[in-house]
């Protein structure tokens, strides 16, 4: 009897795989977006970072009143800053975002300095503009540097060591490993890997449940000797297979892009080699089993494909929101997080990306809830298929 059940389950799996493989339109769209997503995504992000870095490096500083303080201008030019003449309507241009920052030197600068007063310069900017921030910071730190240099020179003229006026020495040690500094970009890689495991199985899962019902082929299927449990497991395995394929292709896209594509250098040494690839797959295994089961359940509740699509958007919303909440919650992650599906996986993906191996105990914990949910969802689908109400409502 067991061999009969196995043979039927395999027959269902085989049929679903053939059916899916021949669904050119869905297949092409899903696979193409999976393969291309990584490269396109990374290219965009890298260019964004590179352009910000460029802006910070080659700073152009429009100056108004350069003639009043030629020493400052000379200092700036020695620091590779190209000093330009500020336009008259500089404040309007800053407000519009055309200019990042403008330096204004008072006409009384020279006279004040001669009289032993402090010379006044003004930096004008709009700090609410993220894009302008590196330029603002750069200008501020240059002026501070000049101030310090000037002060030090005056002290030395009076025979005083600079440490008298500067008793505190602040040394910084950034413990971020090179990999960690790419955290934001890596968040996106982890996020996308997680997302691929939802999107991968979606079309197939809905087609094989709600679609089967809509096409009127479910009732004849239920009249065959195939038990509802066999039908559900056969279909589930088929969806899992497709889901795993999409996740693998998505990760391959990332891997190939990071390894071989001529991405602009942004000082973010990415670590997404074969080892990270393997760890990603390992961490995502519970998702690749759980999400197809849940998608099948959502699909089995609907009478038609469209209805199922509407219902599935709730699931999509939850899965895509959890990592975002985690990103903004800048706290140390509590231990119970490993018991929350999606959250745990996201956290472990991040661990992998930081170049660390996820702890085995954590990996095991992260599988608990998805395993339970997988079983619950599969049992629920089986029960739905066993109910008479599945026949009603064409």
């Amino acid at each position, binding site marked *: 009897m067991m061999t009969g059940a196995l*043979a*039927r389950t395999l*027959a269902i799996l085989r*049929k679903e795989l053939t059916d899916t493989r021949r669904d050119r339109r869905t297949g092409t769209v899903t696979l193409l977006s999976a393969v291309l997503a990584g490269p396109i995504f990374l290219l965009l992000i890298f260019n964004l970072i590179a352009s910000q870095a460029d802006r910070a490096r080659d700073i152009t500083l429009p100056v108004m009143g350069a003639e009043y303080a030629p020493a400052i201008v000379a200092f700036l030019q020695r620091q590779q800053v190209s000093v330009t003449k500020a336009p008259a309507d500089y404040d309007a241009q800053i407000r519009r975002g055309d200019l990042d920052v403008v330096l204004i030197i008072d006409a009384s600068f020279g006279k004040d300095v001669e009289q032993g007063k402090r010379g006044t310069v003004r930096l004008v900017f709009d700090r609410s503009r993220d894009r302008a921030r590196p330029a603002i910071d750069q200008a501020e730190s240059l002026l501070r540097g000049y101030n310090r240099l000037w002060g030090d020179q005056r002290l030395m003229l009076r025979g005083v060591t600079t440490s008298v006026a500067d008793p505190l020495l602040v040394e910084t040690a950034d413990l971020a490993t090179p990999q960690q500094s790419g955290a934001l970009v890596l968040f996106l890689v982890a996020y996308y890997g997680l997302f691929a495991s939802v999107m991968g199985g979606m079309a197939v899962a809905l087609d094989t449940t709600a679609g089967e019902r809509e*096409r009127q082929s479910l009732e*004849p299927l239920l*009249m*065959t*000797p195939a038990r509802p449990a066999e039908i559900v497991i056969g279909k589930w395995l088929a969806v899992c297979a497709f889901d795993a394929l999409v996740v693998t292709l998505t990760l391959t896209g990332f891997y190939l892009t990071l390894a071989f594509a001529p991405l602009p250098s942004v000082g973010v040494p990415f670590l997404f080699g074969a080892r990270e690839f393997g760890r990603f797959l390992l961490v995502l295994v519970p998702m690749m089993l759980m999400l197809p089961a849940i998608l099948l359940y959502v699909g089995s509740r609907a009478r038609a494909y469209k209805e199922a699509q509407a219902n599935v958007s709730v699931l999509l919303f939850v899965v895509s929101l959890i990592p975002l909440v985690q990103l903004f919650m800048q706290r140390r992650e509590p231990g119970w997080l490993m018991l929350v599906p999606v959250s745990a996986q996201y956290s472990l993906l991040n661990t992998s990306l930081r170049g660390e191996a996820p702890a085995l105990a954590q990996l095991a914990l992260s599988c608990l809830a998805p395993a339970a949910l997988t079983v619950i969802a599969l049992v629920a689908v089986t029960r739905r298929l066993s109910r008479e109400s599945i026949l009603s409502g064409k």
Partner: protein
Amino acid sequence: MITLERLAKAFGKRREVHAVRDVTFDAPDGEITGLLGPNGAGKTTLLRMIATLVVPDAGCALVDGLDAVADRHAVRARIGVLSDARGLYSRLTARENVRYYGALHGLSGAPLEQRIDALFATLGLAPIAERRSAGFSQGERMKVAIARALVHDPDTILLDEPTNGLDIMSVRMLRGELRALRAQGKCLLFSSHVIQEVAALCDRIVVLSQGRVVAQGTACELIARAGTSGLEDAFVALLGSDEGLAA
């Protein structure tokens, strides 16, 4: 051989819709039994109870002595059903559609392919066997659905309104096929609301109205009982009204 004893089924929250009430009749082997009734008489529910998909509230349905509830898996292996829902998998070929059902019935390899070849030859499906069913006509779909229902050579065959939407050539083909199956000693139960269809084919007729059997027997017996000149008048007389016959 199908035996129904006091079969009943109601739907709705408070079981207020009585789809089938107290239905008792036999459908013997080697005969075509027609289930005649207006729309909503309970034909589909009755067939679904025999096909083990709907559990009766009372009474029992036996197929070759096997109970449709207690032995439902054994019953499923013995029956071939052309149900009201007869969707094919449009991305699979005609042969693959039938092969899938064959595999679910435990067939495989050369015996399965030979069985499919034989069925396709009888049904005239051989020329389109390797084509995907997406582009099939209504008649071609019906033939594939019949092949699918018969792939495991069942002894008991249930057909729910099989001629719906078929052109006259397909209907004639179907009749020929059903007569051939009868000649092989199969038990056929055929539901329809079309009187001519039932009259042309069935050995015995069970008239169903509002879930009850209002009369059963051969066409001649029904006409004699109603005291009318033709089967249509007999049918209307037996129902007590011509409600539901318009469709």
